[in-house]
């Protein structure tokens, strides 16, 4: 079971109040986790990754185990602690703007 923490506005969009849990088959990567997240919450499509390019939106960052994984390959394995559900995969909005 993969745990994902969403920022406030995306929790509202997905109508969830807490972290979400996902079943992900195969390797646990940014891509497979986000694919599973968008499959379970289709209203998030385009809000984390750009529709066409599947690139991370510029003002969002990905964290896990106190590390910024934003610039890692989307196909790189996430830390074991995320894969085992011990630690969440965190989507966070950059602190910018007003």
């Amino acid at each position, binding site marked *: 079971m993969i745990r994902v923490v969403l920022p*406030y*506005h995306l929790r509202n969009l997905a109508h969830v109040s807490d972290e979400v849990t996902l079943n992900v088959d195969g390797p646990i990567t940014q891509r497979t986790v986000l694919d599973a997240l968008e499959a379970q919450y*289709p209203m998030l499509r*385009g809000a984390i990754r750009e529709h066409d390019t599947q690139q991370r*939106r510029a*003002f969002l960052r990905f964290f896990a185990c106190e590390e910024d994984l934003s610039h890692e390959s989307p196909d790189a394995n996430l830390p074991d602690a995320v894969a085992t559900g011990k630690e969440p995969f965190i989507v966070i909005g950059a602190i910018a703007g007003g």
Partner: protein
Amino acid sequence: MLAGILGYNCSLKINYNAVAEERFMSGVRILVGTRKGAFILNSDGKRTNWEVSGPHFAGWEIYHLKGSPVDPNRIYASQSSSWFGQIIQRSDDGGKTWHQPGTPAGQPAEPGPPKSESNKFAYDSAAKPLTTHQWYDGTQHPWEFKRVWHLEPSLSDPETVYAGVEDAAIFRSSDGGKNWKELPGLRGHGTGPKWQPGAGGMCLHTIILDPSNPKRIYIAISAAGAFRSDDGGETWKPINRGLRSQYIPDPNAEVGHCVHHVAMNPKRPDVLFMQKHWDVMRSDDSGDNWKEVSGNLPTDFGFVIDVHAHEPETVYVVPIKSDSEHYVHEGKLRVYRTKSGGNEWEPLTKGLPQKDCYVNVLRDAMAVDALDKCGVYFGTTGGQVYASSDAGDSWNPIVRDLPAVLSVEVQTLK
């Protein structure tokens, strides 16, 4: 004879009651988009007491909301954020509840392809000619989707709605907002390399559907100008003859003008009024030719313009000091009204602040209702929404402290 007289009197009485009943039952719903959410203001036909609901989509920029003329309970909203991108929201109950079309709240996806992609606005990459547009530094730049500025529901089908977007293009949904397809003929006109972003981006902000001709659509872009389609959006022609803009290399160019807003009285659809960056303009031939009608305005820079619901020669603008100082002239919030189609303008000040006021009124932030005594409404960047129930003679704030207002639309309810 007696029966005839009685019948006549009886008929009069029934008509009187019908009018009274309609006035009693009618109401107004104002849809307000702000920098930090949407608000819905409701009143009965007297328009003196208002109920305020919101914020809906708190914390998000709501560039525009608009209700279907066919089904007033159907409202579309553009919700956007620099962080999370573009979201389309829809209400089917007059704004009480909302959902993203095709993805009801919290509903898990079923296996298979996406049920909808209501927030996906993909430019038609097959459209010819493929063009770039002019960037701020004069170089060419590819089209990049930013947000939806304006939503225009069809006059005949609640499932059909048009979207004006940044970077400038027009999209249409025929399934209630679930899927969007560009009408590529607009960018395909071929003048794209001469279009350029204004200070607010290169936005298609105005869409007007001609009630007398379902094939005719008007749009306006900052900074490209106004365009018209006479074939339902397949092909477009620039309609900027008569516009003169000193700030572009050729002041009389076919495209490149910074049109801020265009308005039409639906009962006289061939007459259009325009607030250009500078200059208030009028066309009597569906945009083919324009003439300036700024007349005695204290400044003819501004954003909003609208037309009285029943008097097509009565037009409203809010002059703004200049394009360097985006606030009202002399610290006074004044709506200017002409009753003669332009040139002769009178300031409307009763109930509006006449000192120390430095707000702006953005291009989509004025609307009129269709009640007997036409109501006029506008919102400011200071968060006030003002209402006049007497065609502008006097004004009252409905709310004073909302986030900066981006758009105001009115639904006249029966």
